[in-house]
């Protein structure tokens, strides 16, 4: 599975705005580049990212060929309750990766 790095604060106050950072290892091959024989290299990118907070979707992103390799996505949410954040990336050629992080809300 692709390696991913997640940064979620371990603790937050209820109602606090928290920043979530995600980084995943992926080539993000655009499909527009030729290889050394001149043939185009087939597209191989992550197409979708979803973040769920205790099962509820709070952030979704569509990714396109112009997005760099090893996409770094960062976004904000409000800390409402203690629980788990799930992150899921899906892409070409059946690519799928997931990670999770716990948060304690006081």
């Amino acid at each position, binding site marked *: 599975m692709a390696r991913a790095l997640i940064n979620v604060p371990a603790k937050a106050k209820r109602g606090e705005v928290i920043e979530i950072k995600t980084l995943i290892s992926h080539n993000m091959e655009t499909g527009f580049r030729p290889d050394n024989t001149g043939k185009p290299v087939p597209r191989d990118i992550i197409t979708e990212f979803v973040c769920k907070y205790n099962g509820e979707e709070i952030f979704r992103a569509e990714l396109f060929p112009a997005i760099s*390799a*090893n996409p770094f996505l960062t976004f904000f949410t409000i800390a409402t309750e203690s629980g788990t954040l799930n992150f899921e990336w899906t892409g070409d050629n059946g690519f799928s990766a997931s990670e999770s992080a716990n948060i304690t809300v006081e």
Partner: protein
Amino acid sequence: MRSGAVAAVATAVLAATAIAAEIPLADRKSGYDFMGRETRAMQDDDTANPGMLWVLDGEALWKRKDGAAGKSCADCHGDAQTSMKGVAARYPTFNAARGRPIDLEQRVNMCRTDQQQSTPLPFESKDLLALTAYVGRQSRGMPIDIADDERTRPFLQAGRDMFNQRQGQLNLSCALCHEDNWGQKLAGAPIPQGHATGYPLYRLEWQSLGSLQRRLRNCLVGMRAQSYTFGAPEYVDLELFLMWRARGMPVETPAVRP
């Protein structure tokens, strides 16, 4: 007396323009100091620094048994966090068996062939970058400390000569940009002083981690000069000189650069 002083000043000015002055130790700056705020933030945060993806891969490789000997790096070296601390700060280092300095990539491959009885990893392969990044990461923040002794001196001199040698169709030397014109702009980008403090590093332009030799190749191609094959002694001499030139500066591996 007065004319003598004027003559002395004139000679001094002439000497300064004729020979590129080395950057005084206190005026040295890492490439980090030339970067924008966002790129610095990327390097400083281990969860935003893409180089850390390679470091994590390196950590897994460190423990993986390989080769006919069925040994992992950890079987000989134990916990890299203690055994590899400060190691990358001393590389390239003189190797008695080879009779010349070797860089970290060559050291990893020597271990692979001699100890693990496995095949050497190709230069710039993901695994070699991962292992060198992982080993380099253990020295982060430590001062670069290159041995300047009888054994390394001839190679340091060879590296210095290459650094000052004009070459290629544009007739440039490394020193012309990185000593005489650092801080100026080249095609809109600032020219850094060329201290190799953070290799292997993640270049946004490469969208990948890369070694110092890859960077040197880039510079040579830019100068329209002939580049060497990866692992060539010329590169290692230049790496040795560059690291000596950055002596005392902290290791930043894995650094991020634009």
